[in-house]
């Protein structure tokens, strides 16, 4: 097992071959359908994509919703990470268990319970009405707010894990040190805690943004494609399954994949990320 070669071996080769069949071929079909169908060419449907008001507005809406979700998730996750980082061991384990267990739960199930929570007869809308925040008991389902809330809820554990993985283990001691130097809590938070965890926050934001661009289940269930809840994934499904327009569906899919790969490349270029990748792959923890 100490043979280390520069050629792709059979183990790797077999998996790559499987990937070629199951991943590359479908993507190839996507490109093929986007490029050449009976009625148009690639430039044709891409052009339509860029200029037709419907498609442009859906793309912009998708980006807007994804940005909203990313920012909201970041804002909600930071206090949670703060609590996790400074909690005693027992409490931290309990909280981590709660967060992790919500990750096991199916996306469908979680979106589904938000439908219930946000509909007319739920305690939430009753409470809002009680506190005079809404004029009548309203249902929030099929609104953009519902989609953002649902997606936040589902992507929050990911953000929490990303940020907390960047926090050094001795953060409690750092806090005590800052307190002993008479720093205010706000100072500690802004000048110590945030800078330490900012790397994880950036990685988390990138990941959450990418995931929410391509999200299908939550927008489909909580938004339904009405009004301003239409996201690109819903459009793809509509085009392919309901309208049978394979060409447009393929073009949209290729576009989405291209956009995600582009954002990913931009996010992976920075030097710290490449260093991290190289340390992971060479199993050395102190690469310079």
């Amino acid at each position: 097992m100490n043979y280390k070669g520069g050629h792709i071996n059979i183990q790797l080769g077999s998996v790559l071959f499987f990937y070629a069949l199951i991943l590359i071929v479908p993507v190839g079909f996507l490109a093929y359908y986007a490029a050449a169908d009976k009625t148009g060419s690639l430039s044709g449907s891409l052009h339509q994509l860029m200029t037709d008001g419907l498609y442009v507005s859906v793309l912009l809406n998708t980006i807007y919703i994804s940005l909203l979700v990313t920012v909201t998730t970041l804002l909600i996750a930071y206090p949670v990470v703060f609590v996790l980082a400074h909690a005693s061991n027992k409490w931290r384990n309990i909280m981590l268990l709660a967060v992790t267990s919500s990750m096991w739960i199916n996306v469908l199930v979680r979106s589904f319970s938000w439908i219930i929570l946000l509909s007319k007869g739920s305690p939430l809308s009753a409470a809002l009405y009680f506190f005079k925040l809404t004029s009548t008991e309203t249902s929030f389902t099929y609104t953009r707010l519902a989609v953002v809330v649902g997606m936040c809820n589902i992507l929050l554990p990911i953000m929490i894990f990303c940020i907390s993985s960047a926090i050094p283990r001795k953060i409690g001691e750092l806090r005590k040190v800052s307190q002993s130097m008479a720093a205010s809590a706000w100072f500690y938070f802004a000048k110590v805690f945030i800078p330490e965890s900012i790397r994880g926050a950036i990685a988390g934001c990138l990941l959450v943004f990418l995931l929410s661009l391509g999200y299908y289940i939550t927008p489909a269930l909580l938004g339904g494609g009405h009004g301003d809840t239409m996201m690109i994934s819903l459009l793809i499904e509509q085009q392919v399954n309901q309208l049978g327009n394979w060409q447009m569906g393929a073009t949209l899919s290729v576009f989405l994949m291209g956009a995600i790969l582009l954002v990913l490349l931009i996010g992976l270029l920075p030097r710290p990320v490449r260093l991290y990748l190289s340390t992971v792959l060479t199993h050395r923890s102190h690469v310079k």
Partner: protein
Amino acid sequence: MLNRISFTWLIKLMGVLGLLFVVLPVIILVPMSFTDSKYLQFPPLSYSLRWYSHFLTSAEWFGPFLKSVLIGVLSAVLAVSGGLAAALGIRIYHGRWKSAIVLFILSPVFLPPITIGVGMLFTFSKLGLFDSYLSIILAHTLLGIPFALVIILSALNRRLDELMDAAATFGATASYALFTVLIPEIRRNLLNAWLICFLVSFDEPVLSLFVTGSNTKTLPRQLFDSVRYDLEPTSAAVAVVMIVISTALTLLFSKRSKI
């Protein structure tokens, strides 16, 4: 002094509220599944188990459940094998393209499942494999390999390398040593990887939406259709069953230290 207490307290309060926000959907789902009425309501006015029995007795729900279990088991086995092969290959390979290959193998995780799904729809339709068990099992295997790879890769260390070398000095071929030395050593990790791949496949809604038809309808697909179109309490019961299964399996796999 007072200033310090109130700021930290505020942040901690926000943190606790954030945590509650995370677990909220699960908490409300459980009592809702025991409702007696035909509609979903929270809190339920009367309780019964009728929706659970409906789940167990109706072919509409129990069929997909069995299919999901079968597909999950098979695709997890394939995914773990693929992940093991890939992990071993990564350990051995030291060429220029190592990072690129690893990223490529990990790519199904961050590529939107909907694009993969649409592509697979096209491919499998052209091949006449649409709505077959083979296509959904292969699709879920693809999704599972990245997870298996990461878990197994973290389990392979230098000690195992040396163990395999020692086996070679005793005259074992690589494949013989694989089955008699390596796999028994990392069997716990392999089982954990299997569990993760099973849960990934069992819970997977998007790909199943595109690749399955009426024949191979998986449970998430059935759940999605039901929530989207008829919204009845059986969905809540099914959801709770899925939660219980996921939790039970995870606890089972972490407690058994004798295996």
